[in-house]
């Protein structure tokens, strides 16, 4: 879904559901989570609600996950030293 939004277009749930294996409800639920995380923003356009990616937030999220990922690498290096000694 992030992939579809990453082209910079604002899309409705109906558009996001096109050709997707996910149900509208599942997409809507996923969007709420992303909205809560600040990664997705929504706006009204007539009768439709359109969703748009927040690129800055997405970059922050990636950087955050990279940081945590490095933390796990470090912890696993210590675990390896412990169990292989």
């Amino acid at each position, binding site marked *: 879904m992030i992939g579809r939004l990453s082209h910079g277009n604002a899309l409705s749930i109906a558009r996001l559901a096109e050709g997707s294996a996910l149900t509208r409800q599942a997409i809507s639920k996923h969007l709420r989570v992303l909205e*809560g995380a600040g990664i997705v923003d929504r706006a009204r356009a007539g009768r439709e609600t359109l969703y748009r990616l927040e690129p800055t937030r997405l970059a922050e999220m*990636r*950087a955050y996950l990279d940081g*945590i990922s490095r933390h*796990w690498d*470090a912890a696993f290096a*210590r675990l*390896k030293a*412990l*169990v292989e000694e």
Partner: protein
Amino acid sequence: MADRIEKRIVLKAPVSRVWRALTDYREFGTWFHVALDGPFVRGQEVRGRITWPGAEHLTMTATVQRIEPERVFSFTWHPYAIDPAMDYSSEPTTLVEFTLEPVPEGTLLMVVESGFAALPPHRRDEAFRMNDHGWSIQTQNIAEYVAPPA
């Protein structure tokens, strides 16, 4: 997008040894750098003081979800909850799940941490601060631990 982090590592040690390092709370503490106050019990909370230099004022709290001997160990926690003045208890947690599998070389260990997208945005800023202060120091520790000064 990734809402999760997955890591896998092959350890040259039997599954039973790796299982002990993960689930014995004292052994867990040596590599995770936390002094836990008691053993891991399913459904129960365990707390401990972080033991890496510069972060000793921090407490870790985890709730054990699954303990399936030599296969799966998981807990939920507030990842990198680094502000001692802040009450994190009402915030969503992430799930940390370790899976072990015997392989010819020893043990394949996987960890999946999931649920990051549900965390409030401000938590990510805190993690950046932690990156600056805590993690660089920690990386240095590892270098010393893995290759002790001659």
